[in-house]
């Protein structure tokens, strides 16, 4: 069964029917937002059932949109928290990626500005590495990007997408060795993205990120994970009752190769390890459970089939 990422938008009225339907299809609801009278669901559903969902949501005036980034957690790195870098470019990118289904976290660096002084701290590097992909939002000058890029690459082992003022070709030329993705013509600016060419740039970012993540997906497919992250999320929500006391809108964040559980590590890690996925198979057997650098969360990284010999 191939699951495809979608976003469902519709009214609150009878939306529980949609929830049930997705569950019955064997799909997973990754995120659910209730905004006034509207419900936005981000879900993974079987490819052959999209039409069924479309037909059934029609009387509820619901809309089913393909959302390529559902089930991914992306770090948007802004060079600082100053007015020079926030809010415009960083917030606009983060917000736009969310509309494509991604769970985005914004990271404002303590000393990311300046071509000479720009650097990543250990904590920043570790937090970035907990994501599926990182987007660096650089400035407008080639010289600066060229000089500071080596420091921002050091120790990062997830795919990097770079955006900056120079053209895409210029970015490709100055960044050596190459990174996973480039989007040029989107550097520092001091206004909201409203005009068509700017929105088109945001679309470019989404497609570049999707392209890079597709590559990562096919890498994962070569040695599949022991359990799908969406299913692991479901298991945790079902069997770890304390997760329902978490006030965060997304208590379990689905990533491409794991989940982030928003419970404190010390009291819950052992409990989580023992959660049974299927008879005789526990979460601890098929994944690495470690403390996250983000607050006191638990990071679960699923081991591949070649490691465990198990597929649940």
């Amino acid at each position, binding site marked *: 069964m191939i699951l495809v990422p979608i976003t469902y938008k519709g009214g609150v009225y009878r939306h529980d029917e949609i929830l049930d339907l997705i569950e019955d299809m064997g799909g997973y609801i990754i995120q659910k937002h209730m905004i006034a009278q509207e419900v936005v669901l981000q879900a993974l559903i079987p490819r052959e059932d999209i039409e069924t969902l479309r037909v059934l949501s029609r009387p509820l005036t619901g809309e089913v949109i393909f959302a390529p980034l559902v089930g991914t957690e992306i770090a948007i790195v802004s*060079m*600082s928290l*100053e*007015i*020079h*870098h926030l809010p415009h470019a960083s917030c606009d990118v983060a917000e736009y990626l969310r509309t494509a289904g991604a769970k985005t976290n914004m990271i404002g660096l303590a000393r990311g*500005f*300046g*071509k*000479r*002084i*720009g650097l990543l701290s250990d904590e920043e590097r570790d937090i970035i590495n907990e994501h599926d992909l990182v987007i660096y939002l650089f*400035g*407008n*000058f*080639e*010289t*600066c990007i060229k000089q500071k890029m080596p420091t921002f690459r050091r120790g990062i082992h997830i795919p990097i997408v770079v955006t900056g*003022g*120079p*053209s895409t070709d*210029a970015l490709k030329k100055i960044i050596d060795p190459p990174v996973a993705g480039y989007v040029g013509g989107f*550097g*520092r*600016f*001091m*206004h909201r993205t409203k005009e068509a060419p700017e929105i088109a740039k945001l679309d470019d970012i989404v497609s570049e990120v999707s392209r890079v993540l597709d590559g990562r997906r096919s890498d994962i497919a070569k040695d599949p994970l022991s359990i799908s992250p969406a299913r692991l999320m479901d298991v945790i929500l079902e069997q770890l009752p304390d997760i329902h006391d978490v006030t965060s809108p997304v208590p379990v964040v689905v990533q491409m190769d794991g989940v982030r559980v928003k419970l404190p590590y010390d009291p819950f890690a052992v409990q989580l390890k023992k959660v049974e996925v299927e008879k005789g198979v526990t979460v601890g057997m098929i994944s690495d459970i470690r403390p996250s650098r983000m607050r006191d969360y638990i990071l679960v990284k699923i081991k591949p089939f070649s490691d465990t010999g198990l597929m649940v």
Partner: protein
Amino acid sequence: MGTLEYFQVESTEPAGGELYRRIASTVITDHDILRVLDRLRIFIDPEVPIFIAVGITRTVPRNVIVRDFAGITYDGDKVILSIADETYLAPLLELLWRKFGKERIVQPDRFTIEMHLNTEEREGIEEIVVADPTEGLFRDLIYTMQVICPEGFKVKKQSFQNGKFWFVASENTLQEDVTPLVEEQFSIMGEGS
């Protein structure tokens, strides 16, 4: 940016310079300093790195004196100030307290100040300078330039004299005397001394 008589942003990297022109134009409009700015030239060399902004302001408003915002009446040995514009009340009070002492200044209500002064002290009370608008203008101008210039450029020097201002910033140590750099930009703008 039609109301600026001269507006140039030049850089050794033309594409970056063009983007910075857009940034400068947004920041100037956002900070509402277009009305006081007449000519502006910015030069950026990211290789050095250096950021130089030079400009000319329009006619700067004169000093604000007591007479401009307060009516003065005399009642025996009392001097009564009736404040029309509250904007300058705080700095005026500060000034009067410092000059005559707090015990001699009474403020019976929000818009009235009463003072007990002898004839000598009453002299020139209407002409006391309460605020210098150029101070605020200079602060606003420099703040605007700080927002425009790249964030890493933490080493700064600036000046504002007779309607001419300059702002120089870099990531590295600046040379002791930046006048030649500034003069060069002024002369490109056609305002050489």
